[in-house]
């Protein structure tokens, strides 16, 4: 494409059906911990 460059292969829609295994790390946004926001995590099973 000339006007658009897509930088990722998004997985959000696909993960509606798969996923939810709950094996990934808990994430807390508060400053006293790592402040590990969900958006900064990766999935443990769909790699």
């Amino acid at each position, binding site marked *: 494409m000339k006007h658009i460059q897509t930088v990722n292969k998004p997985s*959000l829609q696909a993960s509606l059906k798969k996923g939810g295994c709950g094996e*990934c790390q808990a994430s807390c946004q508060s400053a006293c911990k790592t402040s590990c926001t*969900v958006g900064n995590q990766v999935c443990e099973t769909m790699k």
Partner: protein
Amino acid sequence: MLDINSGAVHVVDKMIYDMMDTFDGTNDEDVVAALRGTYPEADLREALGELHELMDQKELFAPDIDVPPTFRQSGIVKSLCLMIAQDCNLRCKYCFGDGGSYGQERAVMSPETGRKAVDFLIGKSGPRKHLEMDFFGGEPLMNMKTVKAVTEYVHQREKETGKTIKLTMTTNGMLLNDENIKWLNDNNFAVVLSLDGRKAVHDAVRPTAGGQGSYDRVVKNFHKFVDSRQGGSSDYRGSYIFLRGTYTHKNLDFTKDVLAMRDEGFDTLSMEPVVLKDNPELAITEEDLPRVREEYDRLTKAYMDAHKAGKGFFFFHFNMDLSNGPCVAKRLSGCGAGHEYMAVAENGDLYPCHQFVGREKYRLGSLDEGVTDTHWPQYFRESHVLNKPKCRDCWCRFFCSGGCHANADLFHGEIRDVYEVGCEIQRKRLECALYVQAMLALEKQAKENN
């Protein structure tokens, strides 16, 4: 350009950017009519073709996400936070735990309570294999006796159950010495170390109980610790060492603090806004927001400059895997407080998370009685972005996952509300992170094409 419901990130030219003011997926002619004066019609039509291509691939205007079946009705507890010592050897000015005491008597957790917590976690975890236990406080190193006893018991129970319990600790570093550094390494701990950047900044907000600065002592200890891991790991899933800082109203030029830590030789960093109510000296308020936004732009630039110069460092919030991010169920669970994650107070009482300890309304039960509260766990479970009115329409809902319940409760007394100043900062930070990731991805693509 971020497509919220697919998670696709597109880098677009100015023309597409302008077209998106009008384009809704069905009104090509309106777009052409609106911009014919600015761009050649042929270009507009070509670009519209590309936009429709993205729509066909479901990477633009992807369908709204609803609660998927993969999001279980009720949570399974897989992570516990132990208030090992509700006591501390520092008196940080912004501490939410009142110098570690959480408004209660200063006290430490007994080994017996700690072991019960391990059994509680395993008993609640159902089929989950990967569990977590965080040693928190106050200052956990003030109660190594319990930390050691619990860790030993964890290892024993791991063998008996086949589960893995990842151990983490957050410490201020005052009591780190050769002996406990070795012990933490031998036991594979992931550790979060608190440092606020420049010495003057750190000492002003993190004094000892006796009122002295703590910088020199903790930095010396942190160096020892980081060196002992030989390179270490910046992967938060491994046994990382993170240095994290808090910025306040007094150091809104916190890029300098991030860089000060980097110059001190630490390269795995995080820096976050303080959350305080009614503290005119340190609290970050709405008036600070323009300054904070500007500072994130400055940090982004410093981050990219360092990267280009081959001196890149790891900054937690800019790190993001746009292709392999968490599933929708996880994005709805968010922090999991109250349903997948709970905190155990020094006396064995259970709360939705470490920040709720001492907020009596939210007490969930105790290790002896189990979870006796029947309302909160489900309420927390269902308090996700699709049920929080202010999050439903927020563009970053699937990255932020609805913010911190404890903050919402602090400011509004209701966890389905949001803490607005935090939201503004979150959105700005995510915007910077998406920019950083898009730039890095383009750089990678360019390299591959060469």
